[in-house]
């Protein structure tokens, strides 16, 4: 396996506040591969924004290290660190465009910092504006743009120095659902056509589903689990994972007296009428309490919570049927969800 583009080793961050030390992150270990779209999800206050800032050393970690292409950011001198940051574009929830600069001059900004000749910078900026679909807005000022347009300009700006990585800090959290979709589509396209590694920080599962290959779930300053999005979606192992992914189920299901199971669809059986077959084969009714499918990376993923018949023998028959059909399931109680 080739060397990960970003390695985070034993990273921790403590903040000194008036009320003493606050631990924002602890024992974070992550390898991010070149060319992947990597998601970091967590509830607010989990430490994900601090984590993304540690990746480009906007926040200096108090423990552990961050390696970019094998080189530790902590060991770099300030000039080298600034050059390394130019290999990592960043976009923000609040866009953070320069309000007094036109769109094209905003995109030229990172190039100005590296001393690129003006005409060359402008040419590059115009190319990027085309990439993000805003050629006609070159002379406009940020105040004249919508949120989605601002984020497109911010993406173009982040791409100006040909970075290898783009860090997205809640980049779609201030946008409406349609705009979110188009911005995520743009990020995915940039990832595919330019091979830029994308790291996405979010609190929205939908963002992870839409574009990420792998995801880390962060909870209470630590990584709860890491894995392929398809795997974590079908079988979240951590409590926070279940809460984030199956969150809706917990609210909607009211349990009756008898046993419940969660049947997991991991893409293979989506063409097969699993429940109907089970009912026909076992000659016993089941009660569908909750069902949900999502399109994750092109395959159907989902889960269904089914109440088994009160009769133990009939319930066992249904479970045996699932086992022999190799359909993953787990028994659930109210506390599990």
């Amino acid at each position, binding site marked *: 396996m080739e060397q990960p583009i970003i390695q985070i080793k034993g990273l921790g961050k403590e903040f000194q506040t008036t009320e003493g030390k606050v631990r924002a992150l602890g024992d974070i270990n992550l390898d991010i591969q070149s060319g992947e779209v990597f998601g970091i999800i967590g509830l607010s206050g989990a430490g994900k924004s601090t984590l993304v800032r540690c990746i*480009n050393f*906007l926040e200096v970690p108090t423990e552990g290290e961050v390696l970019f292409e094998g080189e530790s950011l902590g060991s770099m001198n*300030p000039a080298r660190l*600034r*050059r*390394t*940051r*130019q290999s*990592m*574009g*960043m976009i*923000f929830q*609040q866009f*953070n*465009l*320069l*309000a*007094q*600069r*036109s769109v094209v001059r905003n995109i030229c*900004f*990172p190039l*100005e*910092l*590296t001393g690129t000749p003006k005409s060359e910078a402008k040419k590059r900026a115009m190319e990027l504006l085309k990439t993000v679909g805003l050629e006609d807005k070159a002379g406009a*000022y*940020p*105040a*004249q743009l919508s949120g989605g347009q601002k984020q497109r300009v911010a993406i173009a*700006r*982040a791409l100006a*120095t040909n970075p290898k990585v783009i*860090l997205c800090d809640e980049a779609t959290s201030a946008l409406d659902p349609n705009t979110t979709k188009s911005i995520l589509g743009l990020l995915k396209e940039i990832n595919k056509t330019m091979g830029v590694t994308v790291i996405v920080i979010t609190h929205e599962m939908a963002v992870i589903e839409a574009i990420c290959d792998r995801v880390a779930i962060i909870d209470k300053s630590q990584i709860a689990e890491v894995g392929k999005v398809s795997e974590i979606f079908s079988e979240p192992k951590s409590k926070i994972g279940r809460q984030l992914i199956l969150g809706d189920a917990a609210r909607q299901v009211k349990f009756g007296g008898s046993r419940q199971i969660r049947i997991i669809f991991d893409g293979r059986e989506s063409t097969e009428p699993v429940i109907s077959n089970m009912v026909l084969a076992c000659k016993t009714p089941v009660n569908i309490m909750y069902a949900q499918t999502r399109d994750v990376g092109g395959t159907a993923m989902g889960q269904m919570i089914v109440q088994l018949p009160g009769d133990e023998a009939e319930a066992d028959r249904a479970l045996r049927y699932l086992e022999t059909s190799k359909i993953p399931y787990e028994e659930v109680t109210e506390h599990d969800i």
Partner: protein
Amino acid sequence: MTFDAATIQMLKTGIWETFYMVFLSSLLAYVIGLPLGIVLVCTDTDGIHPMPAVQKILGTVINLLRSVPFLILLFIVLPLSKMVIGTRIGSPAMVIPLTIAAGPYVARVVESSLREIDGGVVEAAKSMGASDWQIIWKVLLPECRPSLLVGGALAVTTILSYSAMAGFVGGGGVGAIAINYGYYRYEAGLMWVSVVLLVVMVQIIQEIGMRMSRKGDKRIR
């Protein structure tokens, strides 16, 4: 009320003296105050280059200078004018105390303008690999331009009103005419003319500052 040619000539000279006292002092006050204001913001604990000790000491010195009433400062500083300019009376001599009084004031005005900037924009510049200098020159100052111009109008009008007090210690300008003729010789007509001239000057400075600020501000559309 009629003015003879000599009076009109005196008023003209007064206007010119006021203009150059205020212009020169403002310029020098910004030469001192602008860098100090930048240092105050950048060295703060949440600034781009935290140096809490420097921030604290500089802040204290500025507060000390600002708490001396201008009239007292005038008397204290005039010997310095004698040393630097060779005289302690007349408009040129007033430039020194005006600059010393206005420099710290300008530093605070600049500081408050620079603090208006959204921290996220500075963070974005940092994420693009900007150095501290680049953040100051390419982000802080241009992004705060409208607010700096409004602050500039405020500072210049304050310097103008300080300059009017210079009349008490042998300085020149329109303020001196108001004091010398209006106050000491009870020539109310001349006093009121001087006051009106000062009011007009303040209006002009304020208007120019506001217009430049609004015109250059790309946030308003």
